[in-house]
């Protein structure tokens, strides 16, 4: 870089650019927040869903599964597991873990009560109804 472009210029561009783009991010975030009610399925954010989210978190489900594509890549995507499998299958599946099949990936049994199972299903149903711009591409997640 030649002498015409000085360190002071570089510094000013840095501070100006950083502040401008951070404020732009903040502004876009405000805009996103105001648009969310149309896409985030908050109408169905029931007490049961909130309890389900708490169970989802305290069993560290994200440590193996993805949810809307985020998480670990060891086990299936669960953002659309509700339409893929349905409530009864999900509950039966969670209850029957681990399969114990030699060499297969194993999911722990979390000893959830019927109420807790209903809550986790409610959370997964709510999640599947979020407008994700048609992601994932198909039902397999």
């Amino acid at each position: 870089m030649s002498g015409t472009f000085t360190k002071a210029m570089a510094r000013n561009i840095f501070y100006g650019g950083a502040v401008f783009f951070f404020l732009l991010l903040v502004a876009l975030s405000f805009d996103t927040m105001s648009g969310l009610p149309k896409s985030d399925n908050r109408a169905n954010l029931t007490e049961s869903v909130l309890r389900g989210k708490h169970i989802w978190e305290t069993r560290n489900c994200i440590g193996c599964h993805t949810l809307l594509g985020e998480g670990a890549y060891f086990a299936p995507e669960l953002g659309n597991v509700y339409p893929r499998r349905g409530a009864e299958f999900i509950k039966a599946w969670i209850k029957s873990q681990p399969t114990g099949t030699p060499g297969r990936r194993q999911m722990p049994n979390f000893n959830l009560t019927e109420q807790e199972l209903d809550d986790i299903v409610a959370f997964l149903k709510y999640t599947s109804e979020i407008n994700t711009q048609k992601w994932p591409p198909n039902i397999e997640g």
Partner: protein
Amino acid sequence: MKYSSQSVAMPYFIAAIGLFVGQIIFGLAMGLQYVVGDFLFPEIPFNVARMVHTNLLIVWLLFGFMGATYFLVPEEAETELYSPKLALLMFWVFLIAGAATILGYLLVPYSTLAEMTGNNILATMGREFLEQPLITKIGIVIVALAFLFNITMTMLKGRKTVISIVLLMGLWGLAIFFLFSFYNPGNLVKDKFYWWWVVHLWVEGVWELIMAAILAFVLIKVTGVDREVIEKWLYVIITLALVTGLIGTGHHYFWIGTPEYWQWLGSIFSALEPIPFFAMTVFAFNMVNRRRREHPNKAAVLWALGTGVMAFLGAGVWGFLHTLAPVNYYTHGSQITAAHGHMAFYGAYVLVVLTIISYAMPLLRGRAANSERSQVCEMWAFWLMTISMVFITLFLTAAGILQVWLQRVSDTPMPFMAVQDQIALFYWMRLWAGVVFAAGLVTYLASFFVKGDSKPLIHA
């Protein structure tokens, strides 16, 4: 070492390397679980191993950043550290809190750990990378504040260089954006939106400031190039990083319930994110080519050049590979993501920490550079780890392409687990590459114990 208080960096570096070893052990265990699913089950299920693997990575990088700061800031500020005692106290607090957290993951069921540690008062756990119990998170904030206080006070009483100012901005940003980890709304979309304010604004934002500052410091030392030149580069690089990376956050807002315009914003800005990493590579090579001295620590120069190249490949190229919304629609949350994550973290942050350790450790041990034999050993470690990481990334990329094809592109999509069986070969290959990486790490550890005639420290 010019100031005696710089020596507090030593325990930080040693802890960083120790936790790095732990991270790799758990990485290997998970690599095996990918193909032998019931390995270590039920003692250490995959989710626990992964939490340990990723949390150890974050913690050891933070140890590395703090060690780097304690080494670098007194020298830049030309004054002793404000309080070496506070630095050592915080070292033990952070190490004990970190170790207790990892033991908690391993020994207590996660839901019990959550109950024991106040998660019912403020639920913050169970989100990727932010799995730490509430008390650990509060501990991190306290350690960070004490650390920032110590560093800020040191800088206030000394010379304020561009490098230390940029570093300090990065560290303050790190602490401030971590506060979003305490915000966990029930609304999943909002939860995910602000979760990225920690994760993305760390690794594709403020951490880049830290990284660029550390790299600039080492380059000044090993090349003797004029500070004015290096500082100008530093400003240009971090400008590019923030201009692209801040709105680049949008590449995480494609499919999580956020408005469609993020697909445009995220694609365009994140497509530019390789530019700062490319600039870093050019910067490193340029400075080394224009060097005014032959520094006896050749290993440190290798790590520095490696940081530039591997950060560009891992964060830049592999990031770009799947960052455009129409591509990401298929690759989101697949092994492609895992491939990128591995090489980006290794190339950018692992290597920059190992660069400063390579430069600083001999000085902390009272010599200008390690012996020839020790450096050769260290350079072997660099190549073993770097090349095996390239292969880990390539195998995961191959696995990811097949996965995306079979599960998402094909007219007859297969279920997740059926696809996993199809691509097992690549997971085996990845595991073997991981074994080579571990061998490289052992070589790295050995380099600290190789004897020989080291270069004496000449005080100017």
